């Protein structure tokens, strides 16, 4: 229960950050899904398999906070949880770069799907490409950070 409350607060904080920086980043054609990436990192770092119902409910919570259509984040959170759980052992033989590419491209797919649903009339390939580049760079920076500051990166949510 305590764990769930912690994770919920973590997601709400992430959503708050995402909502507040989105307007600034949109001027540079960037969509940075930090909530989705944060949840993906959590599923990746956890020792046990994340529960699909938990992923679904967290997705619905994010839908509510972001004011998007219900089911959008719920579906995408379920899918990323399934993917990460399926490849959890394969990740161990991946290099950091490959893992970063996986998360960066997952975030790009997330941006693509959400834009298709929320912004179909003004779908922008420039935004998708720039966001893709930005998200991959961000994931690489996180990997570099965890390599140089392993004590901080070992902290559990």
């Amino acid at each position, binding site marked *: 229960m305590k764990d769930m409350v912690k994770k919920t607060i973590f997601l709400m904080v992430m959503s708050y950050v995402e*909502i507040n920086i*989105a*307007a600034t980043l*949109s001027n540079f054609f960037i*969509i940075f899904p930090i909530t989705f990436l944060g949840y993906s990192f959590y599923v990746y770092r956890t*020792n*046990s*398999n994340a529960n*699909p*119902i938990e*992923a*679904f409910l967290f*997705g619905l919570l994010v839908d*509510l906070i972001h*004011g998007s*259509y*219900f*089911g*959008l984040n*719920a*579906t995408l959170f*379920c*899918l990323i*949880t*399934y993917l990460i*759980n*399926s490849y*959890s*052992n394969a990740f161990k033989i991946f290099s950091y770069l490959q893992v970063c590419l996986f998360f960066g491209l997952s975030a790009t797919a997330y941006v693509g799907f959400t834009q298709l*649903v*929320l*912004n*179909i*009339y*003004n779908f922008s390939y420039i935004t998708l490409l720039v966001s893709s580049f930005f998200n991959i760079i961000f994931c690489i920076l996180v990997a570099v950070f965890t390599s140089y500051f392993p004590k901080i990166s070992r902290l559990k949510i």
Partner: protein
Amino acid sequence: MARITPTPGQKILYFLLVSLGIGILYIDINTNSFQEIKHGYKSLKISSFYILKNISIEPVRRVLNLTKSKKTLLEENTNLKKALDASYLNNYLISRENSFYKDDNILKYPLLDDDFKANYSLAKLKDLDPNIFKCCDKHRMYIELFSNSKEQSNLESVVFNKSGIIGQITNDGNYLEVILLTDVSHSIPIKSISDTFFCNAKGSGRANIIICSYNPLIWDEEILLTKTFYTSGLGGIFPRNIKIGNVINILDISPNLREIEIALSANPLDDEIFGVFKN
């Protein structure tokens, strides 16, 4: 320790949840069935913010005001600001560029003691997500009337700020939901100054841009960049001859379809005080 990949049972659960998610998404997009939950959440968020502010910041501010003996001055300042905002809106209404009212004498000040005599009500901004406004197709805003009389419905009332019309009310719950002119599901009938060109301008989903599509073979008036457009009043909602904006782009899609992009003269992000016309 190695993690176990999803078992067939878990895979079925994932499949069911993804299907459920897609189902909910389809229902929400097509029927807006979850609007009440979303409105409830927004109301809760806004109310909690104000309650928290009243509990935490306001008492401190009140004490500070008392110690500095500025309370009266602050109240006067608030009233003056409200009056100033109202005068901006009044100025917009009686300016020569539009004709909300042909006769200025019928214009009644919204801060009169008798609210029923006023032609429009003042409202303050409660919620407008600038992220959604800048990125997405659905452009909505929530406002609250200063004098919230429930006796009169505000549905379909025109909302304006000191630069012009910004939208109309679609839902009058606790807070009034305003559909902005730029929402993709919104249309506003407009015309040129010469009264020889009419069209329905749809929201583009982009900030401050509406799009008017027409057949150039039927409407032969030459539309040039920077040309000004006005409301035609044909829908019966918006008053006639109110300035909407200027043409910023003209796209020839095909020989019988041309689109003109109009930059609106009123931006909802500019103000926190709005006027709502009474039906």
